[in-house]
């Protein structure tokens, strides 16, 4: 067990190292720099600014400096927002992003699993078709189409919920969370439905019934446990989907989270901020993938002893 976690952490570290290296050099190779877009400044001033951010040094030296900083948990200063360090900016945006992401996962899991179970138990009946329809819509209608439409209907026309921003407590969370959970509801309900149908045919389910267990108990204890395994396995990739989605959600709903920061930073060539957020996303992804694997091992004895 410990060996497994150790190996995964080591792999994760390698991935992060590759990510840092690749991102760093990609950013430096890209045309334009952090200060090439701002108003005309005299060459002397520009040289001074560049020197202050060590942008005049050779690239390998900048890289060494960055890695050295990282080892001391220092992500460096932002080149765009003067007097803010990258850590400040990330810490100010992270709560918004995490809140939306967390609730989106909760809503997506609850609704998705329920829809999938209904679909599997009432196969080819109206309820199944309805669940299937929601699944199709969630996959085929992109967030940046349904999001603005929801804003228009619930925000502008009906006036029930704020159109965007973060000023109104839970009310400003409702739309972003619902829209972000929609594609995940779709995936999770499809997964649950198909794995539930498969599990219902398993021998151990038949055995449980043959032992005389009640239908409800078989369903809760035996079927659900087996059927939820692929869903749990999806939670790792779901993190990636939530990250992708949150970038869009924060743009559409004007939420000051890190997703919005990332896009702005990339457009403004704010190298340290881009690096910092990339690292954070990479670490989150790795963390959730390891967590997912551990959870699966705990739920499914076949995975633990299989290999």
């Amino acid at each position, binding site marked *: 067990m410990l060996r497994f976690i150790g190996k995964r952490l080591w792999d994760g570290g390698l991935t992060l190292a590759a990510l840092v290296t690749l991102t760093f050099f990609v950013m430096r190779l890209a045309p334009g720099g952090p200060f090439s877009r701002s108003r005309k400044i005299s060459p002397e001033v520009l040289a001074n600014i560049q020197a202050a951010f060590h942008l005049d040094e050779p690239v390998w030296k900048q890289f060494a400096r960055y890695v050295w900083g990282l080892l001391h948990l220092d992500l460096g200063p932002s080149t765009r927002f003067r007097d803010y360090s990258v850590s400040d900016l990330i810490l100010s945006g992270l709560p918004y992003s995490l809140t939306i992401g967390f609730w989106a996962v909760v809503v997506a899991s609850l609704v998705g699993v329920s829809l999938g179970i209904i679909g599997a138990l009432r196969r080819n009946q109206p309820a199944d078709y309805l669940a299937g329809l929601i699944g199709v819509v969630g996959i085929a209608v992109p967030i940046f*189409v349904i999001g603005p439409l929801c*804003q228009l209907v619930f925000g502008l026309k009906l006036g029930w919920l704020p159109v965007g921003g973060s000023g109104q407590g839970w009310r400003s969370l409702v739309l972003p969370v619902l829209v972000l959970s929609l594609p995940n509801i779709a995936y999770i309900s499809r997964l649950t439905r198909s794995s539930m149908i498969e599990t219902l045919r398993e021998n151990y389910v038949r055995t449980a019934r043959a032992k005389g267990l009640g239908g409800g108990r078989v369903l809760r204890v035996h079927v659900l446990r087996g059927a939820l395994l692929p869903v749990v396995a999806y939670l790792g990739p779901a993190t990636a989907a939530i990250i992708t989605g949150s970038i869009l959600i924060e743009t559409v709903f004007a939420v000051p989270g890190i997703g919005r920061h990332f896009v702005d930073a990339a*457009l403004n060539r704010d190298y340290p901020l881009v690096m910092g957020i990339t690292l954070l996303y990479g670490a989150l992804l790795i963390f959730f993938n390891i967590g997912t694997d551990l959870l699966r091992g705990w739920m499914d004895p076949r995975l633990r002893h299989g290999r």
Partner: protein
Amino acid sequence: MAVERPLSTFQLQLRRFAQNRLAMLSVFVLALIVLACFFGPYAFPFDGEEADFDYIGAPIDFSSPHLFGTDDFGRDLLVRVLEGGQVSLTIGFLGALTAGGIGVLYGAIAGYVGGRLDGLMMRCIEILYGFPYVILVILLSLLFGGGNVALFAAIVFTLWLTPAVIVRAQAQSLAQREFVQAARAGGMTGPAIVLQHIVPNCMSTVIVYGSLLVPEVILSESFLSFLGIGIKEPQASWGNLIQTGTSAMDTDLRLLLLPGALLVAVLLCLNFIADGLRDAFDPNDR
């Protein structure tokens, strides 16, 4: 009297696909949209980047030359949406084809050769899988400086991984089969075996997963253009048209609805087709 030849597996699969009504309807609708996007603009005397100062922000009016009206610059909305469709669809299909091609070759080589090389190649994939996908696309499209080619390269670079993993698993089992051993004994070289025996035998899996790549690429393209990173004005793409539509939606919904509806229709069709292909080609799933 003609002797009826028994159908090949591939023909049987195609026949099974053709019996799927939803999938066939999707093929039909998709074909219509593709034709409209590529030939429709020729039916109008202006192109999508031309401003018509007599009709600025014109509403839907089927009796005027601009059927679905114009945008704030007097550019014809319908023509812009169709031209945007050309960009999105081209990137979608070419991107999926290229990513699929790279993935198939990579996976086939790794699976067939096996051993150290396989370990190394899979290791690279594992590391790339750990990357947050959007971040990579955004960074790469910035690196290439925006525009069609950049976007295309960035999307392909991030999407070839899954086909590679799937094909590699198949190639591994194929490499042990008798006909491959026979080919090797007969003196066929490695590259020739990979291209003539391994790759063709992976095709049905590749078609199934490749069909899922197309909507993914189209979605990535419009997603990036929506954020202002991909295709930029004045060139139209569904992503940046939707973005423009969003900013004017409380007064004029058609700017959002027309490109949005087409994008959704294409994504729906592609998903139904992919489902149909999976049902027809993958015997494990029934």
